[in-house]
């Protein structure tokens, strides 16, 4: 649409854009406002206070960081998500490389099986996984959660990395092979370094999958407080009547803002639509 739209059209366009920008930003903005207000004032807002920081205190942050085990929860979440991401990447890169480079019987079927598995929500096999972890003695432990997350993100990582390996020309590896390099060296010395950007993005997305999860973290590690993860712990905080909502808001802001930053930094990547196996909506 190359022609310049009329003035009225322009005004309408901006009205829609501004309206939706407020819609998009307000929930996050509200959480930030609430995190800076004392709990008992949340329910007696003045009109201005709903949109602008008319009062501000770091009391909620202080309580969350120093009087509640919030830092422990954050550390637990970080630990579990990082470990799951590393495991998942180690396992999936080699599979992705093989699926991208070798032609063998059953390859296509295997890829489709992976894709089909990824569309089933993990929640549906939760009972069985909990039973399995109970048997191994990992129920209620971080390691059990790490294993569950690793397999949860595995399929996404495999497809994503396979897609990237497909775009790397095979010539380099072929040349190396002619010079007497084996497939393992071709993988570790040539393909892996070339795939570094894709590895980084895949790692971040896999990390986010475990970082924001509620169901597995809440069911597989229900107690005690010192082992809980940030998201389910914050959820129970928000729903307990005895705890001021401002505490939850402060904790939520600490978790949400870095997540938003990461996604905004990756926006270009999403727009190019490279996330084949991980389409969300």
């Amino acid at each position: 649409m190359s022609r310049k739209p009329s003035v009225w059209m322009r005004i309408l366009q901006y009205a829609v854009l501004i309206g939706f920008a407020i819609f998009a930003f307000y929930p996050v903005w509200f959480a930030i406002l609430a995190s800076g207000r004392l709990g008992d004032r949340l329910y007696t807002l003045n009109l201005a206070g709903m949109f602008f920081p008319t009062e501000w205190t770091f009391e909620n942050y202080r309580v969350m960081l120093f009087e509640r085990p919030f830092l422990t929860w954050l550390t637990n979440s970080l630990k579990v998500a990082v470990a799951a991401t590393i495991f998942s990447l180690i396992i999936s890169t080699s599979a992705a490389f093989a699926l991208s480079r070798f032609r063998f019987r059953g390859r296509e079927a295997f890829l489709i099986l992976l894709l089909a598995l990824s569309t089933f929500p993990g929640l549906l096999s939760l009972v069985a996984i909990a039973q399995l972890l109970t048997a191994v003695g990992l129920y209620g432990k971080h390691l059990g959660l790490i294993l569950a997350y690793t397999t949860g993100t595995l399929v996404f990582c495999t497809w994503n990395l396979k897609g990237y390996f497909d775009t790397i020309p095979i010539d380099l590896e072929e040349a190396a092979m002619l010079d007497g390099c084996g497939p393992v060296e071709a993988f570790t010395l040539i393909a892996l370094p070339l795939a570094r950007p894709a590895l980084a993005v895949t790692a971040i997305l896999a990390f986010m999958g475990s970082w924001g999860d509620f169901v597995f973290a809440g069911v597989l590690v229900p107690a005690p407080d010192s082992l809980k993860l940030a998201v389910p712990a914050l959820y129970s905080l928000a729903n307990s009547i005895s705890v001021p909502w401002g505490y939850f808001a402060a904790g939520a802001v600490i978790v949400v803002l870095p997540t938003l930053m990461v996604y905004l930094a990756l926006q270009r990547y999403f727009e190019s639509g490279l996330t084949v196996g991980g389409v969300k909506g």
Partner: protein
Amino acid sequence: MSVWSGRRRALTVLLFLLPTIIAVLIFNIYPTILNIYTSFTTRNKYKPNPDCSVALSGVLDPLCWPVFRDTAPVGLGEPYRIADPPFKNYTDLLGKLFAPPALISLGKMLVCLVPLIIANAVNKRFAKEVTPPLASGWVWLMAIISVVILGFVLDFFAALATLMETGDFLVVVLRTVMFVAIRVPLTFLVGLILALILNSQHLPGRTFFRVVLFIPWGASAVAILIALVWQFFFRDQGVINQLLLAVFNYKGPVWLNSPVWATVVIVLADIWFSYPFFMVSILGALQSVPNELYEAADVDGASPWQQLMGITLPLIRPAIVPALVLTSITAFQMFGTAFAITAGGPQLGADKPGATEYVMVYAYRQIYQVSNYGRATAFAVLIFIMLFLATLYSLRITKITKGAR
């Protein structure tokens, strides 16, 4: 790569794939099998442990395996057994679906949809002709009118009510399907409007809006936390009611206690989470529409609406249909938004699913709050089958598997 071949090659491929295969076997395939087995047992909170002398339990339940038998927790209550009859969990869920009244109701509802199928076929037929005797809009209009008439004659809603009485499964699934049917088109509309505006040239501040409008996508990574903020908006003393009181001096309803309003709130919040996906994918598709087409249309005097319907939508269709299908499947599996905002409520009566208890919320509550594992796994198996069919269909539609070649 033909440098090396034969057995060595096969071994290398296997080594590369082995970790993934093992992980998938242990954490995907095996749980599915155990899940199916559990769905035929009476396992619940009070009978969590197996009776290892039952052959299948001994083989399938990990608590019975010799390696783990010593470390396995010893249950207090009696062990779970095969349900009697074996399909009991399924009949509990599906209830009287296969009894005559429910089947007749189902038949009636399907008959009501026949005109739509006919209209689709007729339109496909007409589309092949150069001058169709009837515009497709008219065919659809006639079809919809006949659906309404048929609906009145056969009493569609009474049939629906009969079906809803059959058991939890249909209630939950139909409600979820209704949620998807409302949520996905609205999200698409919002995404389309925003993408069309953002795609227009000479739009100062475009980058700013692109960034701000993208925020909910990032927030959906920690969906449950932001959904709790949405819940706070609509509490009795929440932001919305305070605004209504302050501006209009009007005492707002208790939003989340009303089945209709609770649904509306969840739809709204879920649109918030998911419109950026549509916006981004439509925006990407719009880049591929050549500008000359619009110039030519301008010369021919086509209105913006005609350009939208005649050029833009048909050309971005290949990119949009997969997005629509995938979004429908993910919307069907929506959990965080509904769970954080209403946790499935408001209650509609004892032992009945709540008004917003969608598929995943129901599954979660059966596991975590009711701890009726037998029924939860039976429910999971039924949803598995539905999702499997939907996935097969979507793989065909989206052609994602072309990456497998």
